[in-house]
């Protein structure tokens, strides 16, 4: 029963597809790997890849909850020399992207230059460097008052990279960047010693159960790719832990009102997350292990 939701979602996505039979083409590897068939199509991967949260959301929450910033938690900038394959470059473009966002949210903008350079280099190696406005970001990073602009240029740049990769049938690279981003966000959020509101962080971690389901569906498109196998096993092991998190919902019709000409829709449904400290710690341990493999 543990894969019920992903299985249903795959079925739902397959049923809702436009009929485009395109496969999850893969230009990831330095040497192309053959795959017999895709579990879901490129189009379906593109539909669900945006379910991976923007790292701004997690880092903003940590900042709001009084989490103390620690530079030691970031992927060391010097690690870039270890990333010699496109697989590693894509994953760590994601980890460095999250770290850059995290530094900016915590007003460490002026210390982010090495991370900007790393993102520029990795994006360049993956042939998506044109979407990362390194020059403007470097200039804006000299002044910590430009955080909103930096975050918009960074995040929109990553969105443009992802869209371009999908247009170029390099969806696998886009998925890896997204997974690197997500794992790094979870790593930062599960390594908190002190927070004024730990419950909110715990709940947000628990809510990642649904994101994980989406990631498993996306990874199924690359099930025959050798490079993905280890990552997929790790993600499935993480899923076993996340299955202990209980999420419940109540549904009620939303209500609509117009305020100053703007349509406002108020959700009347609710959700609640049950996650113990023990489960949180298990998730933390597993995420640390996955992240260690990614960054080394």
């Amino acid at each position, binding site marked *: 029963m543990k894969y019920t939701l992903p299985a249903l979602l795959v079925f739902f996505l397959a049923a809702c597809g436009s009929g485009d039979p395109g496969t999850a083409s893969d230009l990831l590897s330095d040497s192309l790997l053959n795959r017999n068939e895709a579990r879901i199509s490129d189009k379906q991967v593109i539909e669900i890849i945006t379910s991976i949260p923007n790292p*701004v*959301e997690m880092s903003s929450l940590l900042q709001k909850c009084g989490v103390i910033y620690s530079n030691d938690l970031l992927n060391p900038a010097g690690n870039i020399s270890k990333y010699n394959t496109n697989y590693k470059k894509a994953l760590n473009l994601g980890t460095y992207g999250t770290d850059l966002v995290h530094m900016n949210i915590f007003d460490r903008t002026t210390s982010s230059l090495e991370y900007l350079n790393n993102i520029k280099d990795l994006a360049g190696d993956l042939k998506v460097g044109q979407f990362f406005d390194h020059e403007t970001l470097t200039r804006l990073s000299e002044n910590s008052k430009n955080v*909103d602009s930096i975050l918009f240029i960074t995040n*929109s740049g990553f969105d443009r990279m992802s869209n371009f990769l999908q247009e170029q049938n390099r969806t696998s690279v886009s998925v890896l960047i997204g997974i690197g981003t997500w794992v790094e966000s979870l790593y930062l959020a599960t390594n908190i010693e002190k927070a004024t509101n730990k419950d909110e962080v715990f709940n947000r971690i628990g*809510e990642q159960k649904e994101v994980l389901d989406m990631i498993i569906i996306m990874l199924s498109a690359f099930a025959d790719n050798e490079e993905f196998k280890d990552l997929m096993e790790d993600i499935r092991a993480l899923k076993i832990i996340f299955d202990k998190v209980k999420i419940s919902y109540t549904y009620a019709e939303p209500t609509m009102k117009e305020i100053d000409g703007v349509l*406002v829709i108020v959700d009347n449904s609710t*959700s609640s997350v049950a996650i113990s400290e023990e489960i949180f710690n298990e998730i933390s341990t597993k995420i640390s292990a996955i992240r260690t493999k990614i960054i080394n």
Partner: protein
Amino acid sequence: MKKFLYIILLGFIFLIPGKASAQCNDELLNVCYPSLGEFKYLKSWPVKIKKNKKKGAPPSVLRFNVVLNGGYKYILTACDAEEYEGKVVISLYSGNALVGSSYDAKTNKDYKKFIFDCKKSGVYYVSFYFIDGEEGCAIGVLGQQEMNRK
């Protein structure tokens, strides 16, 4: 306030030629970004749909998943590229249930955007179509309400 500086920067870029450019390319996002107002940029979706050739057929729809968090307000907005006739509609679904839409077909009112006061965390679907199945190009943008920084 910090976003204000960026809007000024964009103003210089787009107002120098005389009018705001909103063509079907990467710049469409920069033109649409100020419509977020005080909301923080989270994601964007480029939308390009060809004219529906079958008479009477429903418009073609593009859809994407997104995870929203209860306790936050979101804005969903979309901007059309100027060289196309199509007027984009952005809608939000929870499962198969419509949560909200920028266009009210009953009154023919096009709000262009809407705010969603989210109480239920989970996977939602953002969908796009062009009114009357016209060909169109647009960018959809999701923003989250700014949280107070220290």
